[in-house]
């Protein structure tokens, strides 16, 4: 909004820049992250990039419309993209277990790979470990980047419960897999039973005993077998994790923090911004989704409500004595057919007289509108006739407007709080759509709104009423 001094984020320039090779969309759940990633993909492809979108958990209908509802962990070409600029869009939905399995198969000999894949501990780890999804998304990103088939990779991130998960996952899994604890766990399995324990001090052996007691002997053995089988891959994990981390820090990567103009989402976004800075990850800016606007922003909520109240009072009076002081109003059915030009100047002139003094002009205005309106149109919604129905409608319109302006004010307050904390972060606002997006034309519309917001923000506000 105009009151904010934050620089504007130009997503079109970002997508058009051949130096931009990876765009990572992150943010809290429910802010439209997946939709933003997909919309950026569509826009980039239709402007000539050969793009691939890696999504984590798209809504079913969105996935169907992109042709990626089948989970096969392979990018599929998206049909229906305008390729006239020479671009293409591919998309895939991440299957984290499969990515993990593929990783194991690629880094261990067949026999060892089979042993790992069959291990119960591995099976749980690959399907359920809190960080697996994050880690595997990064692993897949590394793979896609290495294939060098696309000039732009757009990544949607998992709906992490906190920003930390996503950035920490590579390190955490890596540090676990070649950490102290697993070495201790592995020790007996590696050198063949309890004999190996003598190499460890008594404290540690007591500790493994304790762990075994808590975890249960069988789980302990599974972990040990797993760790032994994975042993040769540990180095690989750490190397990959570090390579992915560096890839994220590289100049060709751009992070977009996605948020909605709500307190919690923006608080999370601010946290993300700080975290990315701490990890020296290149932040391109904030995409603020679902921002409300108004074509009548010059009319404040307070004035709209006051006006609605004025009209309601008039209506209440009219309903007490609807015809006594307003005889011309009696037969609204009569005046329609002859007057088919609602824009005619005659009645407006009458009103001109009425608004010189709104109080006394009230009755005059009603007369005028009675003469002005084709009643056929409003008959279904209000059998009483047009003057009061138009006023009732005006009351509703004003109340809706007041509600909209309150939403706007709240959104601006939360947005402002963010820009005060992080004035350096460029922001792109995406105007709210009334419904959900689940097809290419919807994604295209989002992409256009992302691009258009620059003009909207620059538009000079119309002078205020009164």
């Amino acid at each position, binding site marked *: 909004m105009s009151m904010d001094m934050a620089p504007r984020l130009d997503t079109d320039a970002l997508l058009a820049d051949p130096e931009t090779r990876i765009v990572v969309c992150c943010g809290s759940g429910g802010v439209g992250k997946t939709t933003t990633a997909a919309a950026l993909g569509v826009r980039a492809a239709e402007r000539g990039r050969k793009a691939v979108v890696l999504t984590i958990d798209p809504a079913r209908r969105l996935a169907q419309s992109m042709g990626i509802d089948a989970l096969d962990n392979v990018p599929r070409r998206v049909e229906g993209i305008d390729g006239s600029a020479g671009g293409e869009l591919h998309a895939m939905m991440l299957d984290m277990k499969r990515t993990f399995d593929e990783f194991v198969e690629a880094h261990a000999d067949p026999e060892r790979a089979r042993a790992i894949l069959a291990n119960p501990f591995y099976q749980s780890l690959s399907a359920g470990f809190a960080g697996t999804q994050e880690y595997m998304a990064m692993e897949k990103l590394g793979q896609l980047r290495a294939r060098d088939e696309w000039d732009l990779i757009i990544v949607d991130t998992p709906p992490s419960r906190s920003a930390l998960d996503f950035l920490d996952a590579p390190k*955490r899994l890596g540090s676990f897999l070649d950490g102290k604890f697993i070495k201790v766990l592995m020790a007996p399995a590696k050198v063949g039973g309890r004999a190996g324990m003598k190499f460890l001090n008594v404290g540690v052996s007591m*500790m493994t005993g304790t762990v075994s007691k808590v*975890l249960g002997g069988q789980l302990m053995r599974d972990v040990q077998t797993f760790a032994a089988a994975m042993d040769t891959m540990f180095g690989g994990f750490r190397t990959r994790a570090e390579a992915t981390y560096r890839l994220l820090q590289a100049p060709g990567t751009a992070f977009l923090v996605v948020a909605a103009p709500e307190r919690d989402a923006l608080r999370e976004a601010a946290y993300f911004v700080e975290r990315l800075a701490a990890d020296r990850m290149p932040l391109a800016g904030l995409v603020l989704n679902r921002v409300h606007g108004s074509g009548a922003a010059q009319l404040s909520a307070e004035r709209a409500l006051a006006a609605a109240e004025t009209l309601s009072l008039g209506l209440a009076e009219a309903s007490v004595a609807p015809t006594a002081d307003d005889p011309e109003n009696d037969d609204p059915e009569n005046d329609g057919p002859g007057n088919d030009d*609602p824009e005619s*100047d005659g009645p407006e002139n009458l009103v*001109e007289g009425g608004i010189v003094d*709104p109080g006394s002009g009230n009755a005059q205005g009603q007369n005028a509108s009675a003469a002005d*309106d084709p009643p056929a149109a*409003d008959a279904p919604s209000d059998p009483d006739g047009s003057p009061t129905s138009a006023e009732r409608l005006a009351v509703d319109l004003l109340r809706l407007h007041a509600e909209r302006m309150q939403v706007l004010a709240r959104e601006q307050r939360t947005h402002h709080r963010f820009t005060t904390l992080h004035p350096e972060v460029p922001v792109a606002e995406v105007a709210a759509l009334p419904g959900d997006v689940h097809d290419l034309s919807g994604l295209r519309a989002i992409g256009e709104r992302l691009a258009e917001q620059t003009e909207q923000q620059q538009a000079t506000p119309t002078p205020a009423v009164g």
Partner: protein
Amino acid sequence: MSRLHVVSGKGGTGKTTVAAALALALATDGRRTLLVEVEGRQGIAQLFETGALPYEERKIASAPGGGEVHALAIDPEFALLDYLHMFYKMGSAGRALKKLGAIDFATTIAPGLRDVLLTGKACEAVRRKGKDGRFVYDFVVMDAPPTGRITRFLNVNHEVAGLARTGPIHNQAQAVMRVLKSPETAVHMVTLLEEMPVQETADGIGELRADGLPTGAVIVNMVRPAILDHAAVEAAAQGQRAAVAKALSQAGLGGARRGGLAERLVDPLLEQAREHAERVALERAQRAELTGLGLPLYELELLTDGVDLAGLYRLAADLRKQWPM
């Protein structure tokens, strides 16, 4: 009535707010409730406008009629140390385990263990009795993980079964599961009247039912009033523009003739009304979908100024009016 209320919902639907309002509502008239969070986000502290919650049960609010809401942010690491202490009397060993990375392993990496610890702590609070033999908390309300993860989170037994077929973790999981699958527990879903949250709610309820977990209510959050429908807006746009301009003019909003301020308001106001009507129609379809789920449906209005403490009490009162408690 159930004593453990698990509140889930898609991200962005306000499940923390609803969980807090429910805890307040249940505490009304002299009851004691414990509100727990399990995702380390400190959402409860923010809602109740207090500092970050430690791993300690403390009173955070009074409910109307002398009730109390206590809160606890369950931290898996502390919960594990707690557990080790309670069952194995291993206070100092915990620190050594931490140094070794074993606690890290159990709470963040070993699949399912973390969830057993979190749900286990909540179940312990549900069953805890005071010296007088009465339950310490009348109700426990859990701000749970989002819809996409809730079934997996609660079905600790299944998660752990393949992993620990015997031993203490297995037993603990069994005990937790007995509480979670009993009528003592109810899993509620928070949603908005929007397509994706409603779809996730339906999917989530299907999963809960398939796994034999007890479903509770669906709470529709942030409901906005339906003021105008399509027919009214289109009728207005067809033939009443000038009349509306006049009405606006009468209300003191400027001139109604072409180019006058009131006249220029008509188009943008009608456009907003059109968007509103479109939303009303979408919401109607979503509400019908939710009704089809066969669960009690409660609605909470949108607080246009955002949720502050006063708003939270209002939502609690609203829930209490609708919900047989």
